[in-house]
């Protein structure tokens, strides 16, 4: 059988009890909130301490490495100078190409019996004036000049801009190669 409780307290007193309970609850909640806050703060403090320790340790490592680096100062300077110099050398060698030997390759390709009268050679063109006994040999030389050889020499165009009959009976031929 269900028992029904009867509140004998007056209404005001009952209200006060309810308020007191609510206030206590609020107080407890605030208390726990504050406790959690302080726990978090303790965590922050701990993390701060950990970071400080870690930072100090890294500082020490950096210092040790810097001391070690001092031993390699000469190596560092040598490596730096070497790399800078080698870079420049590489650029010069690439630009230089094989200018001198290339020139002589062209000269060696002249028809047999050709005598060089005058020749000029720079990065853009090669001009050779040579004497041959017959015009045919000069014409054959240009006609038969292997395209592959011209490409190897970096030439774009080959021509005979001038052919002149020589007083001695031969021909003066001017050969021009444009690079």
């Amino acid at each position: 059988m269900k028992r029904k409780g009867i509140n004998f307290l007056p209404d005001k007193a009952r209200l006060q009890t309810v308020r007191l309970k609510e206030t206590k609850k609020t107080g407890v909640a605030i208390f726990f909130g504050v406790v959690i806050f302080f726990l978090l703060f303790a965590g922050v403090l701990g993390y701060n301490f950990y970071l400080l320790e870690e930072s100090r340790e890294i500082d020490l490592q950096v210092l040790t490495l810097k001391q070690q680096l001092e031993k390699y100062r000469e190596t560092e300077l040598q490596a730096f100078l070497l790399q800078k110099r080698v870079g420049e050398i590489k650029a010069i060698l690439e630009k230089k190409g094989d200018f001198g030997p290339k020139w002589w390759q062209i000269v060696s390709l002249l028809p047999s019996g050709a005598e060089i009268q005058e020749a000029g050679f720079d990065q853009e063109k090669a001009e050779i004036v040579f004497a041959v006994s017959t015009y045919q040999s000069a014409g054959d030389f240009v006609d038969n000049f292997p395209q592959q050889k011209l490409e190897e020499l970096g030439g774009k165009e080959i021509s005979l801009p001038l052919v002149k009959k020589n007083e001695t009976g031969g021909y003066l031929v001017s050969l021009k190669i444009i690079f």
Partner: protein
Amino acid sequence: MSKQRISFSDLKTLVLPIGFVVFTFLFGFVVVAPKAKEIFVLNRRMKEQKEELFILETKIETLSKLASINLKEKLELSLKALPAEISVPLVMSTIEQIAGQNDLDLKSFSSGDNFVFECVLEGNKSSLESFFTDLDQSLPILTTQEIKLTDVEDRLIKAEFGLKAFFLDFEEEIKASEKVSLLSSEEEATLGELEKFTFFALPALLTPVSTSASGRTNPF
């Protein structure tokens, strides 16, 4: 329905919690906020420190590897190829030596603008050919600017040409920002190519400087 009023006794019960809250806020502002800021700064500093540590570790590792190869010898070779300053006697001596070993007659040698030297050689065609091949494989690096050939006499050719010499200042100090790396395969290849070149050193002066009895150098 009765209106609920907060009595003085209720407030008395709330004083402690409110005090806690106020204290917590004040504490937060005065202590926690600066601490949090400190952590933020520390974190950033740590990140920088770790980066510095990584750079230093990598640098030391690279340098220890570089120290194991003969850098000094390689640097000397590169200095032979590209000296710190242009030495006119060295360029002239190189030309003289190459011309001499190819039976060529060095008719003239003069220095012009922009480190270009004008040379005139005389000899036969095959000697001139060997000269330019040797010159191409010699140190210090000299590049031929222009060649002009004229037929002088029977089988004798006069070659007039310009030679450009190069130099690179020797820096004693390196900037902290400069990074050192291991020699790349291209750099190794360039050095390997240079090793095949011939260095024509300046012949040592054989004539000793005469000194008088007093120990002073005789200027005559």
